[in-house]
C-alpha cells in the first residue's frame, strides 16, 4: 500500500467505487460556501453534485435529482432546515436517505430538534474538509449497505416465491388427480400447506396398469429451504425407479440407500407408499416411519389405523422394509397424512394426535365427500386459513365409495392441489359420477 497522501481519496471506503458515484445535493444559500463544499467533495472524486439555493429548490431537486445524500444548511431564507428535513422525510423514498445538516449551533436543545426533524448527522461550521468527507463517506456506505440488504431481501423473497411455485408444480395437479381417480373408479382429495414459503413435504401419484396406482407421501425432517431441496431430489429419485413402482418394499429400500448417501447425519425422511388396487379390492403398502394411514369402513362404521413400522429413509444403509396388504372394499376410504396434522398445535390447545384423528373420523358422517372430510378434520385439528403452521402438512383422502348410494357433490378448486382444500373457495362443482 502506498504511503498516506493527503490528496488521495479517503481510504477505507470498501464500497468506495459506488460511493464516489453517489448523487449529492448541496443546499446552501451562500454561493461561495456552495463552491467550497463542492470543491472539497470534487477533490475526493465525488462528481455527481447538484446545488439548491433555498428550501423550495431543495425540495424540488430532491424530487427531480433523487440524491443519495443531502448536505443541508440549517438556515435558508425561505424554508428553515428543520422544515426541509421534515418535508423530505415525509416522502417514502427518502425515509432513510442520509441528511447531513450544517450548523454553527451547538446548542443542545437545538441539536435535539434537529435529530427529531430527521437529520442523520450534523457538520459544524466553519467547514472542516476532512470531517465533511469522512461523514459523507460513512453515511453513504451505511445507506448503500441498507439498500443492498433491502435488494437482497427482495431478491430472496422473489426467488422463494419462484421456488414455492416450482414445488407446487411437483405435486399432482387437480386434473392429474381426477384422471387417476376416474381410471381407478374412486375419488381423491388433497391438502398441502407449508410452514413457510417452501416445505419438506412431498406427495405424488404414480399410475400403474389396470386401474392401479401408487400414492406416496414423504416428509423430510425440518422445514424451509434444506428440506425443500430434498423434496426435489426425492421427486427425481422416485421417478428414476419406475420399475419399482409396483413393489412398495423394494422402492423404499432403494430410496433409502440413495438417501443415506445424500442426507447429512440427523436428517431423514419418513415415507409411505401405497398401491391402490380397486379391482382386487386391496391396498399394498410399505412405510418408513410415516404416521400410519387411517382406513374407514362404512359397513362396519369404523375407523382404524394401519399398524406398520419401518426405519425412516436416509438413516442407515441396507434397511429391509415389509409389504403389508389390507382390504380396500367399496365402502372404504383411506386417509394419508404427514405428522403436521396430528402434531399441529397453536401453542395453546392440545394436539389432536393419531388417536384423536381416528375418533374424529368415526364421528364424521359417512356421506360427505373426500374434500369435506379433509375440511372437517382440519377444523378438528385446529387448522384454519389464518393460522400459522408450525410444520408442513399434507393430507390425502382416497375414497372408494364412488358408487355411493347417496348422491353427493364433489367440490373442487381450479388450482393445483396446493393449498386448495382450506384456502381456495370451491370454484367448480362436479356431480358424483354415479349420482
Amino acid at each position: 500500500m502506498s504511503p498516506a497522501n493527503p490528496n488521495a481519496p479517503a481510504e477505507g471506503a470498501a464500497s468506495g467505487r459506488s460511493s464516489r458515484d453517489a448523487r449529492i445535493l448541496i443546499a446552501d444559500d451562500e454561493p461561495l460556501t456552495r463552491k467550497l463544499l463542492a470543491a472539497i467533495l470534487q477533490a475526493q472524486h465525488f462528481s455527481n453534485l447538484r446545488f439548491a439555493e433555498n428550501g423550495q429548490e431543495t425540495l424540488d431537486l430532491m424530487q427531480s435529482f433523487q440524491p443519495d445524500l443531502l448536505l443541508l444548511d440549517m438556515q435558508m431564507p425561505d424554508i428553515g432546515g428543520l422544515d426541509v428535513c421534515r418535508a423530505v422525510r415525509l416522502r417514502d423514498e427518502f425515509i432513510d436517505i442520509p441528511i447531513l445538516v450544517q450548523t454553527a449551533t451547538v446548542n443542545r436543545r437545538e441539536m435535539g430538534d434537529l435529530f427529531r426533524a430527521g437529520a442523520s448527522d450534523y457538520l459544524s461550521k466553519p467547514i472542516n474538509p476532512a470531517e465533511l468527507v469522512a461523514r459523507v463517506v460513512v453515511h453513504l456506505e451505511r445507506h448503500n449497505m441498507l439498500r443492498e440488504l433491502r435488494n437482497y431481501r427482495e431478491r430472496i423473497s422473489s426467488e422463494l416465491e419462484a421456488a414455492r411455485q416450482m414445488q407446487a408444480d411437483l405435486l399432482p395437479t387437480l386434473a392429474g388427480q381426477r384422471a387417476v381417480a376416474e381410471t381407478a373408479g374412486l375419488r381423491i382429495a388433497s391438502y398441502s400447506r407449508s410452514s413457510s414459503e417452501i416445505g419438506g413435504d412431498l406427495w405424488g401419484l404414480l399410475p400403474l396398469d389396470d386401474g392401479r396406482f401408487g400414492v406416496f407421501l414423504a416428509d423430510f425432517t425440518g422445514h424451509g429451504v434444506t428440506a425443500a431441496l430434498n423434496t426435489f431430489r426425492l421427486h427425481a429419485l422416485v421417478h428414476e425407479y419406475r420399475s419399482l413402482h409396483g413393489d412398495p418394499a423394494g422402492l423404499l429400500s432403494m430410496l433409502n440407500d440413495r438417501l443415506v448417501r445424500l442426507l447429512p447425519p440427523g436428517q431423514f425422511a419418513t415415507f409411505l407408499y401405497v398401491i391402490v388396487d380397486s379391482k382386487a379390492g386391496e391396498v399394498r403398502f410399505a412405510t418408513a416411519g410415516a404416521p400410519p394411514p387411517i382406513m374407514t369402513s362404512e359397513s362396519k362404521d369404523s375407523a382404524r389405523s394401519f399398524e406398520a413400522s419401518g426405519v425412516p429413509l436416509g438413516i442407515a444403509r441396507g434397511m429391509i422394509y415389509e409389504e403389508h396388504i389390507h382390504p380396500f372394499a367399496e365402502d372404504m376410504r383411506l386417509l394419508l397424512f404427514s405428522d403436521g396434522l396430528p402434531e399441529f398445535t397453536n401453542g395453546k390447545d392440545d394436539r389432536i394426535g393419531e388417536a384423536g384423528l381416528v375418533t374424529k373420523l368415526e364421528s364424521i358422517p359417512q356421506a360427505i365427500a373426500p374434500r369435506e372430510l379433509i375440511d372437517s378434520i382440519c377444523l378438528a385439528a385446529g387448522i384454519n386459513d389464518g393460522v400459522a403452521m408450525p410444520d408442513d402438512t399434507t393430507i390425502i383422502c382416497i375414497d372408494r365409495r364412488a358408487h355411493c348410494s347417496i348422491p353427493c357433490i364433489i367440490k373442487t378448486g381450479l388450482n393445483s392441489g396446493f393449498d386448495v382444500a382450506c384456502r381456495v373457495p370451491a370454484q367448480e362443482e362436479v356431480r358424483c359420477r354415479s349420482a
Partner: protein
Amino acid sequence: MEFRLDNGGVQISGEFTFTDHASFKTMIDSLLKDGSPSVTMDLGQLQFIDSAGLGMLLLARDAFGKADRKLVLRAPSGQVKRMFGLTKFDTLFSVED
C-alpha cells in the same frame, strides 16, 4: 424440554421438538466431557417428541459412537414410545424399559 443431569445420566422431560436444538446439543457436549463409558438418557418423563427430536437423538448416537461411548435410552412411554415403534428407533438404539 427440560433435562436434569444425575450420576452418569440425564433425565429428559416435557416436549422434545425442533426448538430444543441448541440446549440439547449443549447437554450432549457436557455428557461427552464426563468420562463414563455408558450414558443413560431417561425418557420416562418425556411427553412428546417430533421428527426433529428424533433427528437430534440420531446425532447424539453418532457423537457417542465416535467417542467410543454408549448411549442408552430408557423407558420411553406414550407418544414417544409410539414414535420409537413406528420408526423402529428401538432397533437403532439400545433402549431399556
